């Protein structure tokens, strides 16, 4: 098979190291006719994709199998894309530099909705037909996974296979089935897909028919024959100590977003914040043991030479043996100047001593996410932390010399009013106040508080999945209200573009009708929609107009009894629980965390009980 010729192009583009494919711990294999070729495709640039832990896991999991060769593919930056198109170079696997149409599978990870246009662009760059129904037996099978795959409907027409839930086992089952079908002779894609539909966690969109009512709401969603499951259940890994985890990860040459050893300490989250999709879809909580983690840490540090290790999870301070784990890492690695980072620490059990300890090696800023400015609204979203937690934490932090504090909030949460917004200002001022009250000899000479707001996007499988998104005008009004009120010395206010939040909301809760919009938008040049410099709102609005689809149909309030586009997917958390939580939110009733009380979300009924 021929390699694509890119050497001369690399002299012309920015950051050519993105396209080399020979980084430390990358895998290169001999290819023969028995090799199953899998392309792990990340629909964004190299620096974003290489920061993704899931890719490192799947890449090494697959490459551990003798007959499978998994390569990486990222969206080429626009300068490289232009060179490739001008020189008729198709999109290729980084490791083999062979065109994607030589592959058996393309697996796209869906990390955020605004990357969908890049998926179409990447298929197009590879010369592969966009629509699933237009692809032949010769074309690769296109599959998706990741958080947005829990509502894959907006891109369902482009996709052959959707993998729901944690992929380590199901991906191997899918590839083994493929291998067997090929071995037995008479392989056809349609027979393969029908058999694949029987595997738990596998959803084949083409095997279902959707009908709509006159008002655009779904009327029915039915499998095309009785052998196909009506509801598709996600997959989870029972035992995290036994599941595959890479002992070496690819170390990029370029400075990527997360450039360190990432050690996953547990999956799931016990908190139940009502806006948070990750907190619902990744249930139940399952931890890795300190022994397993210590072993992995040693192997990963040795094989990469990294100078930093990060303990990754949705809420790091909820790991039951966090102190023991951190103590171990400090004792073992501080001599070698290996830093430890603990992202996603919570305020309410914020352990400053712990952070102080790790910052003796390397010092970083402090980030807190109160999410809402008033106690009432924090109770509405079930973010159970108080202003006292914040002031208490920063008081100790300032006394130990910290001078940089970042505060994250959301705008447009259900029931939010201007009083709640001004609460954001009050919190920021209180933080400044705490700083100035700290004795001068203890604290740093200056202070910097950064307030960042993102716009609330209602997501599937959360208690807020029925809630509307506020209008663009309302977002802008709220942003300028905050802007006015946060104009102070030592205060910085950042906010997201309201228009990208609208598009995100449309695709997060979208249905199959949106694939047409996506196609038209892509053909008119939309790509890298998550990048401010590329996002073209007008082109998107033209695409909606041309296809006669109203974006606001998707941002509206949904009724409890309507069929939602993702109702055929079972994540374990029941609709009854989500409704109950949404109702509780209206009265600002807090629901306790899973460790204290079980709130019967349903996860233990669908999956093996007693593990959360």
């Amino acid at each position: 098979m021929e390699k694509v010729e890119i050497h001369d192009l690399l002299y012309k583009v920015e950051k050519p190291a993105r396209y080399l494919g020979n980084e430390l711990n990358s895998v290169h294999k001999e290819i023969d006719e028995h090799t199953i070729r899998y392309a792990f495709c990340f629909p964004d640039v190299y620096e974003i994709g290489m920061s993704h832990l899931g890719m490192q896991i799947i890449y090494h999991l697959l490459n551990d199998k003798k007959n499978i060769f998994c390569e990486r593919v990222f969206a080429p930056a626009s300068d490289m894309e232009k060179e490739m198109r001008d020189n008729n170079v198709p999109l290729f696997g980084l490791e083999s530099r062979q065109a994607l149409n030589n592959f058996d599978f393309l697996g796209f990870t869906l990390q955020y909705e605004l990357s969908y246009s890049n998926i179409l662009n990447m298929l197009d760059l590879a010369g592969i037909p966009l629509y699933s129904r237009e692809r032949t037996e010769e074309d690769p099978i296109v599959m998706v996974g990741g958080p947005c795959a829990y509502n894959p409907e907006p891109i369902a027409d482009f996709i052959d296979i959707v993998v729901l839930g944690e992929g380590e086992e199901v991906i191997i089952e899918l590839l083994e089935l493929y291998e067997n079908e090929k071995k037995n002779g008479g392989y056809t894609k349609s027979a393969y897909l029908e058999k694949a539909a029987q595997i738990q966690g596998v959803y084949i969109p083409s095997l279902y028919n959707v009908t709509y009512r006159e008002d655009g709401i779904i009327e029915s969603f039915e499998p095309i024959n009785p052998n196909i499951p009506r509801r598709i259940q996600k997959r989870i890994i029972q035992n995290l100590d036994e599941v595959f985890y890479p002992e070496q990860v690819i170390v990029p040459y370029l400075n990527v977003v997360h450039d360190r050893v990432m050690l996953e300490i547990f999956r799931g989250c016990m908190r139940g914040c009502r806006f948070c999709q990750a907190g619902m879809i990744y249930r139940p909580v399952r931890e890795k043991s300190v022994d397993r983690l210590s072993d992995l840490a040693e192997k990963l540090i040795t094989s990469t030479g990294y100078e930093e290790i990060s303990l990754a999870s949705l809420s790091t301070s909820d790991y039951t043996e966090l102190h023991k784990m951190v103590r171990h890492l400090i004792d073992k690695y501080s001599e070698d100047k290996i830093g430890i980072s603990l992202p996603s620490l919570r305020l309410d059990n914020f352990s400053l001593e712990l952070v102080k300890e790790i910052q003796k090696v390397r010092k970083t800023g402090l980030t807190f996410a109160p999410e809402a400015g008033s106690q009432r609204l924090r109770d509405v979203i079930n973010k159970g932390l108080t202003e006292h937690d914040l002031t208490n934490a920063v008081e100790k932090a300032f006394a130990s010399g910290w001078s940089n504090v970042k505060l994250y909030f959301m705008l447009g949460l259900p029931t939010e009013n201007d009083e709640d917004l001004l609460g954001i200002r009050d919190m920021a001022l209180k933080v400044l106040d705490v700083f100035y009250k700290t004795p001068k000899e203890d604290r740093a000479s200056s202070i910097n508080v950064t307030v960042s707001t993102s716009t609330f996007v209602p997501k599937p499988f959360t208690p807020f999945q029925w809630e509307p998104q506020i209008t663009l005008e309302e977002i802008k009004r709220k942003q300028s209200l905050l802007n006015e009120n946060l104009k102070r010395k030592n205060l910085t206010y950042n906010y997201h573009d309201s228009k990208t939040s609208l598009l995100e909301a449309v695709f997060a809760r979208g249905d199959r009708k949106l694939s047409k919009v996506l196609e038209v938008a892509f053909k008119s040049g939309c790509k890298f929609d998550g990048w401010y410099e590329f996002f073209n709102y007008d082109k998107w609005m033209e695409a909606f107009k041309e296809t006669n689809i109203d974006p606001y149909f998707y941002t509206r309030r949904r009724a409890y009894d309507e069929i939602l586009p993702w109702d055929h997917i079972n994540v374990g958390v029941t609709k009854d629980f989500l409704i109950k939580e949404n109702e509780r939110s209206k009265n600002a009733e807090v629901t306790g965390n899973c460790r204290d009380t079980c709130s019967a979300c349903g996860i233990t009924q669908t999956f093996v009980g007693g593990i959360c």
Partner: protein
Amino acid sequence: MLMYKMRSKFYKKEDMVFISHLDLLRVFERAMRRAKIPIAYTQGFNPHPIMAFATALGLGISSDAEYIDITLYESVDENVFMDRVNKVLPEGLKLVKSKDVSIKEDSLMSIVKSSSYLVRFILNEKMDKNIFEEKLKEFENLDTIIIKKEKRKRKGNRWINKVQEIDIKESIHSIELAQIEDMEVMLRMKLTAGEVGNIKPEIVLEELANHVNINYNKDSLRIHRINLLNESEEDLMQ
């Protein structure tokens, strides 16, 4: 604490030419950890290994002679050092010589004075060897070779672009034709490098092309560094 300085010469070629100077620093840092070399760190909140290169090499340029000083907190045998580091360096990067020098030894940056290059490019139209050599002579006989350099300067709160005129005549120590075959030309240049100022071969080529009227394809330009030289025009690690 007693410190040691390991001076090394290495090459950078093949795919490694696409690794920038900053990225190269990280490659070395991580290679040192994997090779279990006792590297010394800077003090402070964000400790960095103490490493220093002779000069930065531009992106896309290959080199037979890059130099790096790495400070160690324990003495390591030169050959052991080379072996262990070469085992973990990626293909295209390799130490060719390592020497334990005095910690007080002058820095590489201060001893480098010039750099020799091979510069390859394709002409847009055929040219005889004689004619090309005449043109080179004409270029060498110029009294001054003025280039315009844009410099971003800070004036109060804003940045302004200031154009500076520099005569690079003295920075071109030599320039000669190594080979000309059909349209393909190979030049050998020796240019000023180091603390006194770095002059890039692509700039010299552009000036040459402008002054004596040579048409070439800019995309075809490939540059290779042959060596870095000290005051006595010798290798930095004699």
